[in-house]
Structure formats: structure tokens, C-alpha cells
């Protein structure tokens, strides 16, 4: 309870941390290119010591012109032994990736050369090996990237498929950050209007021609007895409340839509998790092996061969797919197989996409019968699904009706015949897979940028909740309603960066004439 807390404040404990103002040269370095034997390796240094490092290693007091490659003999400064001949670049801050002074050494990629140069750098005073991601962190702290852009860069480095790359690049270039900043600005604007109404509508005159609208309900209910006439303020005193309300409503809708994009960005970033499921011995593991074109899972004619979940990552037309093969679903008696079936069911619960496999030779041929067979496999929650009827090579005579059912373009879910043995029907399956993936991940270049991190959707969810609270409080207590907008803005700020009280006042004074 704040009340008693305020009265019982502990005596102020001020512990001062005094520091000397001397600069301490924290310069980091690392091998920036890949590891292993290669043609060229790039070693990068960032920090105030980069200049000295470049001078020491080239053995020359003069630096090459900024941002121009220069050929230099690279030497160990302690032994003066030549380590390599390579290209060096000098990036004086702030015009560098990290915003600090940076140097790059492009040397031959042999392990001995690389370790020799790294060892030489490590011996220089004030230089130390970089921690993972430290260059990007420095760039972020120097304001070279905002948080979402830094996240985008991380994704770009890790991007494995074309669609992932497109999305990450878009985010790194700041599009997602811009969207959140625009929302934050909109909120700030709404808050400014509300604050203007709270701080000025009755004290001074906010001179805007907007009519006053429904106020709170605090008036005259407590203590003072008579109702307060102030509930009807002079009509031409500005009431920017309507504007604020409309803005909040629109924003709530927009954030809601963004949140309900079906985790497209997240799926694209992390890969769509598809689960192969079905009864035992229908060829689920064969399907996995067929798709990844190698024997990743053990296959045998014995039902219940697969016990654990086998996972492979695939790239399907640019979309990342993480495919899991699971144990066949049946009532097992063997405890190991029981565990496998239970794992398979768990996996199905979390699947983004299900590849349901049935044996084409034993399934009913009409759609309703197929639907029932499918229902016994799928998890109760709605989840996109492709029905694969395997062993089409074994179909004889009676397949006419089945082929007709599979040929229906608009069947829900999409159905295809496949022979894992001959590979017949694989093209059709890949086509269906690509369609489903495109639907799940969306086009990373179209429309508003997608949510890529669950961190974002968490904060956005909190933000949307605060906006809903605003609507509730708005009729009761404006101060509480304003508090919800402040809260909503703080949640957005956690994603990108913050805005202070001065920003609100700036808008107030730009938009309204306030005078005594």
C-alpha cells in the first residue's frame, strides 16, 4: 500500500560509486569470416585501440586513407616477424559499422595465419577478444541500429532461405521499427490530447473547436453533496477527447490485426513445424526420407519401427520447414513404443502443419470415409493439414474413385496420392506443401512487416490490453484512462525506445493555443 509506504520511507541510503574519469581502452577483435581453411579470412577490431592496433601490426605510423583497401605486410609487433601480406582497411568512427574506430585485416585464410594475427592482437594493451554478438551490441548502443533492426541483423546472419532473408533484410532496414515508432507516435499524440484536456481545459483555455463529450463520473458523488456544474464545461473550451478516443480505437484495431497475422513472421523466422503423423506402417518414415533425399530415418516393414521423433530441416521454395517423423499412432503395449506414441501426440499438439499419411490401399474411397480416417489422426485444435495417401503403386482396379477424390482441386484438406517407393506424386505433394507454407508465412515483402519475435507480440499484447482498459476507464476517471495510455506507450517503447513527458508537451503546445 503506497500510503503507509510513503510514511515509512527508510532513511535515504545514498551509496556513491566514485570512479576515476580515466579512459580505459576496451577494444574488441575477432575473426569475422567463417572458420576453417579458406582463401581469405577477415579479422575485425573495434574500439579506441583499433588505430594503434593497425599501426602496430603494419609497423607503420601512418594509416591508410579511410575506407580504402591497402596492401600491407602484417607483422607480429613483439617479434617483428612477418605473419602474412594482406589487405587492411581503416574505418574511423563514427562512420563505421559499430560507430567506433574500426580496422579490418583481410589475410590468407590458413589456420596458422589467422591464429598468428589473433595472438598478436591479443597481446596489444587494451585489446581483448570479442564476446559473441558484441560488434552488433556496440552498433546498437551507439545508435547505429535500433533494437528491431539489431534483431533483423541477427536474423539476416542466420537466414537460411530466401524468404527468411527477405524478411530479415526488411526488418534490418528498420521497417518493423518504423511501424512500431509510428504507433508510438500515434499514441503520444492521443496522450497529448488527453493530457491537454486534463491540464488545461478548466484552468486555462485550450482554444480548439471541438465539442465537449461525456466526462467521468467523479463529480459530486463524494462528500461535497451538491452535484458539480463543471460536468458541463463551457462548450468552446477545447475537448480533444474525441480525437483521442478515435485514435485509440483505430490503433487498437491495427495492433489487433497485426497480432492476429497467424505468427507469420515468427514462422518464417523460426521455420514452420510440420509433423508427419498416421497409423503405423503407412510409410511415414519413408516420406521423410523421400523429402530430405537421404535415409534420415530407419525404415522397415515392421509396424512400430519408429519410436522417437526424428527431425530434419528443409528448404521448400524458399520457406523454412522443420519436418518431424513420429511413431505410428496406435494402442501400443510395448512401454518404449507407448512413450513414442505419447511423444507423437505431444508433437501433433504443437504442429504448425500436419502431413497426415494413410495407406491408400486400405482407406475408404469416398470423401466422408476419408474424413473420418483423418479425424482419428489430427489433434482436436484446428491446424492446416495435407492428407497423403501413400503406397499408390500398390493400388489396383478399385482406385478410380480414390483418384477422382484426390483430383478435386478445392478439397479440404488437400489430398494427394503418393508412392514413396516410385516417387510418383512427389511433385504434387511439394506443390501442395509450398502452397501451405506460403499461406502460413505470408509474403515477406507485401503489406506491413510481420511480427518476427515473440518478444514483440508479448509487448504488443500488453499494449492492446492497456488500450482496452483505456476504453473501460475513460468513462470513470480520466486520470486512470490516461495512465493506461501511458502504460500502452511504455509497452511499445520496450520494443523500440522511449518517449518522455517533454514530447507530450511539445505536441500539446504545437497543436493548441493555451493562454491565460
Amino acid at each position, binding site marked *: 500500500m503506497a500510503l503507509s509506504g510513503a510514511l515509512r520511507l527508510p532513511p535515504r541510503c545514498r551509496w556513491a560509486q566514485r570512479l576515476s574519469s580515466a579512459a580505459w581502452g576496451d577494444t574488441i577483435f575477432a575473426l569475422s569470416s567463417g572458420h576453417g581453411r579458406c582463401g581469405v579470412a577477415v579479422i575485425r577490431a573495434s574500439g579506441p585501440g583499433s588505430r594503434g592496433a593497425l599501426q602496430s601490426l603494419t609497423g607503420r605510423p601512418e594509416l591508410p586513407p579511410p575506407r580504402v583497401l591497402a596492401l600491407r605486410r602484417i607483422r607480429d609487433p613483439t617479434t617483428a616477424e612477418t605473419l602474412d601480406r594482406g589487405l587492411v582497411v581503416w574505418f574511423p568512427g563514427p562512420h563505421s559499422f559499430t560507430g567506433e574506430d574500426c580496422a579490418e585485416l583481410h589475410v590468407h585464410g590458413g589456420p596458422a595465419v589467422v591464429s598468428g594475427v589473433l*595472438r598478436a592482437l591479443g597481446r596489444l594493451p587494451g585489446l581483448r577478444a570479442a564476446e559473441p554478438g558484441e560488434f552488433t551490441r556496440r552498433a546498437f548502443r551507439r*545508435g547505429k541500429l535500433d533494437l528491431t533492426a539489431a534483431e533483423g541483423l541477427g536474423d539476416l546472419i542466420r537466414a537460411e532461405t530466401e524468404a527468411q532473408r527477405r524478411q530479415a533484410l526488411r526488418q534490418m532496414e528498420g521497417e518493423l521499427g518504423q511501424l512500431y515508432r509510428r504507433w508510438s507516435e500515434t499514441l503520444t499524440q492521443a496522450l497529448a490530447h488527453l*493530457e491537454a484536456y486534463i491540464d488545461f481545459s478548466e484552468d486555462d483555455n485550450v482554444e480548439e473547436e471541438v465539442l465537449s463529450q461525456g466526462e*467521468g463520473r467523479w463529480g459530486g458523488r463524494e462528500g461535497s453533496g451538491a452535484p458539480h*456544474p463543471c460536468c458541463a464545461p463551457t462548450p468552446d473550451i477545447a475537448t480533444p477527447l474525441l480525437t483521442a478516443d478515435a485514435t485509440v480505437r483505430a490503433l487498437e484495431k491495427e495492433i489487433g490485426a497485426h497480432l492476429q497475422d497467424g505468427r507469420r513472421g515468427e514462422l518464417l523466422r523460426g521455420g514452420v513445424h510440420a509433423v508427419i503423423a498416421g497409423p503405423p506402417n503407412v510409410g511415414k518414415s519413408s516420406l521423410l526420407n523421400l523429402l530430405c533425399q537421404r535415409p534420415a530415418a530407419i525404415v522397415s516393414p515392421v509396424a512400430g519401427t519408429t519410436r522417437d521423433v526424428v527431425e530434419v*530441416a528443409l*528448404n521448400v521454395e524458399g520457406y523454412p520447414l522443420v519436418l518431424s517423423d513420429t511413431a505410428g499412432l496406435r494402442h501400443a503395449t510395448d512401454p518404449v513404443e507407448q512413450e513414442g506414441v505419447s511423444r507423437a501426440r505431444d508433437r501433433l499438439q504443437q504442429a504448425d502443419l500436419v502431413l497426415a499419411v494413410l495407406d491408400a490401399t486400405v482407406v475408404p474411397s469416398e470423401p466422408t470415409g476419408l474424413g473420418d480416417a483423418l479425424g482419428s489422426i489430427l489433434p482436436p485444435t484446428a491446424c492446416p493439414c495435407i492428407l497423403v495417401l501413400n503406397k499408390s503403386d500398390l493400388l489396383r482396379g478399385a482406385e478410380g474413385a480414390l483418384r477422382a477424390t484426390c483430383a478435386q482441386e478445392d478439397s479440404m484438406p488437400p489430398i494427394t496420392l503418393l508412392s514413396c517407393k516410385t516417387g510418383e506424386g512427389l511433385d504434387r505433394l511439394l506443390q501442395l506443401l509450398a502452397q501451405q507454407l506460403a499461406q502460413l508465412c505470408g509474403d515477406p515483402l507485401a503489406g506491413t512487416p510481420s511480427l518476427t519475435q515473440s518478444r514483440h507480440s508479448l509487448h504488443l499484447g500488453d499494449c492492446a490490453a492497456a488500450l482496452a482498459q483505456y476504453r473501460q476507464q475513460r468513462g*470513470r476517471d480520466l486520470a486512470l484512462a490516461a495512465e493506461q495510455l501511458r502504460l500502452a506507450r511504455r509497452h511499445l517503447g520496450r520494443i523500440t525506445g522511449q518517449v518522455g513527458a517533454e514530447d507530450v508537451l511539445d505536441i500539446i*503546445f504545437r497543436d493548441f493555443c493555451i493562454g491565460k
Partner: protein
Amino acid sequence: MLVRSSWCRLALPPVQRPRHRRAVGEVGAVAQRYEVVVIGGGHAGTEAAAAAARGGARTLLLTHRIGTIGEMSCNPSFGGIGKGHLMREVDALDGLCGRLCDRSGVHYKVLNRCKGPAVWGLRAQIDRGRYKEEMQREILNTPLLTVREASVEDLLLTEPETDRAGKCRAAGVILGDGSTVHAGSVVLTTGTFLRGTVLIGLETRPAGRLGDQPAIGLAQTLERLGFAMGRLKTGTPPRLAKDTIDFRGLEERTADNPPVPFSFLSKAVWIKPEAQLSCYLTRTTLKAQQIIRDNLHLNNHVRETTRGPRYCPSLESKVLRFPDRQHQVWLEPEGLESNVIYPQGMSMTLPPELQEQVIKSIPGLEKAKILQPGYGVQYDYLDPRQLTASLESRLVQCLFFAGQVNGTTGYEEAAAQGVIAGINACLRARGKPPFLVSRTEGYVGVLIDDLTTLGTSEPYRMFTSRVEFRMSLRPDNADARLTHRGFEEAGCVSQQRHQQAVKMRDALEDGIATLKSIQFSISKWAHLIPEVPISSSRRSPASAFDILQYPEASMDVLARAVPEPLAKLAQWRELAERLKIEAAYEWCVASQQQEIEEVRRDEALQLPEDLDYFAIDASLSAEVREKLDSNRPQTIGAVSRIPGITPAAVVNLLRFVKTHHQKTEKAKASRQAGKDLPGKMFLEQASFPRADVSRVS
């Protein structure tokens, strides 16, 4: 640990009879000694002097004219939104202005009644003459406080204490007659008088206020000492004769009945509710706009570049920025018997004959007579970033600044600073730790932190929107926030007030506990109090405190449903009202608590005053470094409030402060290890291999 209990009361010199010490004729050659000397008798000066004396310091108040003590130089009103909060806090520290306004108002009104108690704005039109009289009576009868008419020409300076920043220490003042007064600390509250200039049309004359001499010697002293000064401007409207105004047809605004007092000590205000005066609303016309536009060449004040306030601007700037509109003019009474009307919104600096034309173009004022023309004032102010949170200057030890001289506008802002400066001048003179109010504790904390951290380029005014913890810092609970601390740590609060605050606190705690202990199922509540629409989705059972949150619920309603034990609580009107407010804000205050703790922690992290922001290696952009260097924040908390400082920069600076030594050690160690080169430690980027990626189609 602070020295507890009432040391300052025990340390009193032999009790002096409260008496009026008009020391005008004292011989100048005799050096005199006080613990605190306050320069200036305005709203900051009087509060500072009274607070220092309440704290037990022998105090001297120096003013040009005793007759102008308590003068309301501009508008005849006190309080308002945000400003009312400040007055409640001044009152909670036993300051003067709240109590005096309860004895001199002629029209009391709580603004924002319908917007929630956290932003209620207590405000009153004040009888100028009565307020001045009350203030002089109060000041001239305060024990330990001496008032003296004199001009201050210079400061008496001495060697600084070596363990603190500052190039010298204030040890007293040198008066106009050449005599010196020694003091433990000096409080400067010179308002607009530092090189003050009054402007009407093209005419300028040196004056702090129309008819009063400016302080020039003191301004030179401050400049010589190396204080950074700036220049601001403000203005005041012409005054009109009431009997020449036609109020028929103008909109009337009546006062509250019953009026709500400012002070926690007042049960009621002095005036009978029905005897209160009204204010009237009229509007400017396009003709006024035309006159102003045609005569800009005759108006020095408006054309000059000195920064004026964005709020409370002159009529000229309103017309220029927002043309072709009607602008509101409130006609406010200046007192019960006064024939003067103050036209709020008409601040202007045109030549007097043109002011008359503008006035006469306004409905109701066609025949109005101007008693005193409006005028502008330009004055020097001190860049408040040179002050600490106790309002002591960093350059000159024991020299405190408060009020308009620090770049603020408004009586309430001045009074609030005055109390804090007075308390701290007293504590400083006795070598005690300062009394600081944080942003999480009060509006006065926000005011002082904003000023000392961010400085100001326009006259600073209090708004509720400046306050992060508005839900917790409400006018109703100022006593709970500050009275106890003022009593324990500053000794500036009387025994009587403290006892009253403690009684209220205990009653509130008991009341809340009682309300929380009464628990019924939702359906039972719905049956007991059908007038409250209790949401069926909330958890059951609910306590009476939960139910009290609903706008439709009140202690009266609850007491009817559960007379035992609630009837007793509901009868104590003041308590019932406060319980209702506590209930309405409980969840919000609770959710802010963690944030408040964060701010307090940040404020406990002090930054060295001599930190070289250009040299430290903390990954800060050049722009951020420059801002840090010019603002010189005292704590990490202050850093986060400087505009343009990114949260990342704050985190980074924090990390630098926290781990500086640790990291240096670590860097040394890793260099040592580097000699043996375990090759893996040079990996720049941890690899995140995705298992088995193969390509299909």
C-alpha cells in the same frame, strides 16, 4: 542513518517571544550573525524564511520594502491543476500559502472535479489586500524570524569546505549601507528583480515590478562568480475598474459551495459560501486582432527573441500564432471590497493608449477604464542546472536559490521551492544532511528534478502531465507523503500538524483493513447494494474495499449495507472521502510500485561530478556525450530523463558505472590468457547450426 527525532527542536536557542523585529534603524557598522539569511520577500522568500525559522534557525529576511511582502504581482488567484498539488505539498511541510489562502479567498473552486481525484485542481481567487495583510502578520510574528528593509549589494564569501564541490562558500551578505550580515547559509529569491526591465510599448525602464527597483549589484556579483545566467520574459494584463464594466450578458462562473480548503489544518475557509464572488467570461474580437497586427512596430517586448512561456502567453502572441479566433478573457475580482478587475488572458505590452482601444473592442468592456496598463518584464534567471536537488548552488557552497530566479513561473512553484530551500538552508547551516524530495514522492520533487537536471529555456510551470507517478502523488495524500518526513528529518512541521497526520494515517490503515476484512460473494453484494453494477466476471468473494472501487459505490452506500462496522467510518467525512480515493486507485498505485522502486534505485546511483563524458569508454554517441556533459546529471535516474538520451545509452552508462573496475580487471586477465591462445575464444559470433539442412525442389 540519519540522526533521528527532533534534534532541531532541542537545539533551539533560549525561546524568543514572537515579536515584530523591524530592524530598519540598526547601526550598519556592527556585524550581525544569523544562521540563515533570505534575500527577497516574495512567495519563495517568505516560505523559505518561515521554513528555516520553523526548523529552528535564527533567520533574517531582507526585502526592499516590508510593505510589499506577500504581494501578488500578477494574477489574483492561487492554485489550479498541478499548482494545487504543489500547495498541498507546501502545506504538508507546514508552509504558509495554503493556510493563508484559506483566510483570504473570495471564490474557491476545485477544477477537474469530473476527471478523477488524482488531477483535481484546488484553486481560489484571492483578495489581494487580505492575503498581503495575512502574510505580513504571519511573517512578522514568526518566532526566530527577523525582517529588515535593506538592499543587498554583494555576497560575503569565504574559503570553501574542501570535501565538497564549489569554489567558495557564502558566509553572509553586504548591504546597501555597507554593513555586513554573517550567515551560515544564504537563500536568494530575487524573482524578476535581477536586472529586471519593465516594457510598455517602446518604452523600457529598469524595474523588477512596476514601481520597484531592480537588483543590479547582485546580478553582477553572480556573473562575476561565474554563474550561467539566461534571460526570460513574462507579462501582466492591464487592470480595469469594476464599476465601468457591463457584466450583463457575460457568462458567469460561480464558486463551489461548500468551498474546499487548501490546508490539511483548515476545517473550512473563512468566507461564507454564499458570500463568494463570481468570475465572468468574455471574448476578444477580430477588431482587437487588427489593432495588435497594425501596431507590432510599437511593441518591443513581442518582437524580441527572449523566450516567453508557451502557456499563459501574451494576447499579442496568441493573435499571431492562432489568428482569426476569439480568445477567452476571464474577468476576475481582486478582492471583496476592491474595485479592480483582472482580465485574465489579456497580458499585453502595447502602448497604453492602444491597450485602451483593444480593451474597448471587447464585449462588456466598451466603457471600461484602465487603472494600470499591462506591461512586460524581462529579467535574468539562473540556469538551474547549477543547483543540486537541495537547491544549493554547486559553484558557491551554502548559497541557495529559489523561485522565479530559477526560471519558473507562478506563485505556487515559487512557494514550493522556497520551502525546500529554506529547510535545506537551515539544515546546511547546522551541518545536517539535506532534505530531498524525490520524483516518486511529490510534485515538488518533480519540479526540482526537472529544473536541476534539464534546466529550462522558458518559464517553467507545473503540469500534472510532467509527473510519472500521478496516480500516487495526489492532492488528497500530500500529508501522508511529506508531513512525517518533514517532522522527522527537517523539523519544519509543528507537533500539532504531525499528530493530526499520524491520526489520519492510522485511521486510513485501519479503515482499509476493515474494508478488506468484509468479504461477501458477488451475489450477496449484488443483493445488498443493487445500485452498484458489480461485474459478474470478477472473482468471488469480493471485499468491501474491492466494491468501493466502483464509481457508483461510496462509503455511505456501503455503510447502509453493512452498518456495523462501516457506519462509524462513513461518518468521518474526510476519512470516507479518502478511503474512496484509496480504493479507486489501489490497483494502479500497486502496479506503479515496482516502477517507483526502479526510479528510487536509479536515483541512488550517483554519478561522479567530475566524470569526463568525452573520455569514458562506455559506447555512447558523440551527441549523447555532449548532452551528458552539458546537463551534468547527478544520478542515473536523472540521465534517463534527459531528452535525446536513449534507453540503451542509460543502460550502457549504468553498466559502465557498475562494472568499471570489475571490467578493467577482467580485461587484464583475458590479455594474460590470450598468450596461450585457446583458439576458440576468438570466435566473434557463436554459431547457431541448424541441424541437417538440405535442399528440396
